[in-house]
């Protein structure tokens, strides 16, 4: 008997049993805890939801103004406003448990013990499908983010890995000299997957008031189409550095954008800022990617990958810009 043409398979295996039905996720901080868009337009089309950054205690966040628009970009300095892990566990997770889409809780902390405490509280909670570690947080002890130095990143990830068996995605900061080195350290420390990238440090200036627009030190994180080329380059570097799945993030606003990240080496993607401008965008992207796969007779999205990338660990010297 001749077996039928193998069908298209959109699934993505992030490890430890977490298999997404498709590679389209929504990025932390751009989808709240999922309830707003669930009410507005629905969430059934998603492969995964990454929650707003969650800390041990509730946080008020930063003073306004917190956001400012730039050329094809958005600066934010929200300051990790969130209700704290207790509310997440008691009020949100039970509702997530009824959803058809896995929710990964994005975890932030001021020091390693806070990360571990949040993660321990999330262990075994129904509705929590996994964790995404945001290690681009101020490391009060050392002055720099955990994400900006391989050693610090490894220490943080190791501590969390010991504390949980949940699927563990670690989110990379792009504000570093060598993102590949950090990604390798995170893989070695036991992460199941990495996501790349978080926002780029930026500033908008108000000429009339002769100071930055955002409150406080005036800096924020840049996201949106402006950073897409930077994020694509970062994903390619990370892809060459590690063997675990890579989730691409940065300026994705269309199915073509999402597919470009798959070409650049991502196994899955997250839609961020685009959720703000179009609450239907993740559905449009999921449908558009599926349609592309069918039109092009793909059996898996991994067929899109640029062949040059299939040499893990072999980072080329790379010609830097002029």
């Amino acid at each position: 008997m001749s077996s039928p043409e193998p069908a298209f398979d959109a699934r993505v295996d992030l490890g430890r049993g977490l298999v997404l039905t498709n590679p389209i996720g929504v990025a932390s901080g751009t989808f709240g805890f999922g309830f707003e868009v669930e009410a507005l337009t629905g969430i059934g089309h998603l492969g995964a939801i990454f929650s707003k950054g969650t800390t041990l205690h509730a946080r008020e966040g930063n003073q306004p103004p917190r956001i400012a628009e730039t050329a094809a970009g958005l600066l934010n300095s929200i300051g990790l406003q969130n209700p704290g892990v207790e509310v997440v566990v008691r009020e949100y997770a039970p509702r997530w448990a009824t959803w058809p889409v896995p929710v990964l809780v994005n975890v932030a902390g001021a020091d390693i013990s806070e990360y571990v405490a949040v993660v321990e509280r999330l262990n075994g909670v129904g509705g929590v499908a996994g964790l995404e570690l945001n290690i681009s947080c101020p490391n009060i002890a050392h002055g720099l983010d955990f994400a900006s130095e391989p050693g610090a990143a490894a220490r943080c990830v190791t501590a969390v890995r010991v504390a949980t068996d949940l699927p563990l995605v670690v989110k990379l900061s792009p504000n570093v000299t060598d993102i590949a080195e950090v990604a390798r350290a995170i893989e070695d420390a036991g992460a199941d997957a990495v996501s790349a990238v978080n926002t780029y440090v930026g500033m908008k200036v108000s000429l009339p008031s002769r100071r930055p627009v955002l409150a406080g030190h005036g800096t924020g994180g840049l996201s949106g189409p402006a950073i897409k080329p930077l994020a694509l380059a970062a994903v390619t570097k990370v892809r060459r550095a590690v063997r675990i799945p890579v989730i691409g993030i940065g300026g994705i606003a269309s199915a073509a954008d999402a597919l470009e990240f798959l070409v650049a080496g991502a196994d899955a993607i997250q839609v961020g800022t685009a959720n703000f401008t179009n609450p239907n965008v993740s559905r449009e992207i999921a449908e558009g990617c599926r349609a592309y796969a069918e039109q092009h007779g793909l059996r898996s999205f991994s067929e899109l990958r640029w062949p040059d990338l299939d040499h893990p660990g072999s980072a080329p010297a790379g010609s830097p810009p002029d």
Partner: protein
Amino acid sequence: MAPANAKALVGESELGRAVDEVARCTALVPLQGNLFEITFRSAEVARRARPGEFAQVEVDSGQIPLLRRPFSFSRADPEAGTVAFYLGAVGVGSRRLRGFAPGDQARLLGPLGRGFTLPARPGRSALVSGGLGAAPFPLLADRLREIGEQMIWLNGARNSAELYPDDLIPPGISEVVQFTEDGSRGRRGLVTAGLRPLLSDLDRIYVCGPNSMLAAVVSLIDESPSDRADRPRVEVSIEAPMGCGFGTCLGCAIPLRPPTAARDPVIGLCCRQGPVMQDSMLDWARLRTQPAHLE
């Protein structure tokens, strides 16, 4: 301690009412200065729009400007299926809309936010506007008239070029008083001067304008001697930069008056708990010190 807005994040407002609709421009009426009124056919949004609520308007399908822009419904005609916005061409988004012609399309997401409270029984209201803050009042006046409310509109602006035009003001308002800071039209001075003598006769005051003007109006009311029981209900429509308009970006933070004696300042979301709020919910001291470039 969970902050006061933790609940809001779990969707206390009615996002389920909002729709994202491709709307077609049916009219663009240029007014004096950089002002204009733009009307869209958007049947579902028009059917649902209430006074004080807003829509997130996509001004460009490209990437500049990136974000949609929040505009309050200025008129809504459920029969005709149209909504109108009253705008000044002040920046990239509003200037783009100023260039719209009938037939041009834009997506409208709405209605969003919490609007003005309509009274259960008719009484006496003042509508107090500063500049573009007049925007939501035609629709509010329509709805108040339907329930028999007696209304006075104190319509202020820096100068006559920025004043909401008299001939657009809907019928049924017993008195419309104009104020300009430079005296170029109506009375010279601020709307607060017109409001002071009315205070004791009012059941409700609806205020819309720059945050600094809202603060001035609220100060006036707070400082006027009155029985606490007599104090008119004050609702202000406040502004904050908006990323999404529906509660996910946390960008539209506004300082709330802490409900308890807790030390930490409390933050609310303009798009979910506002834009219309009772004056007593807001921390006016902090609102007043917000950087000037937001206005």
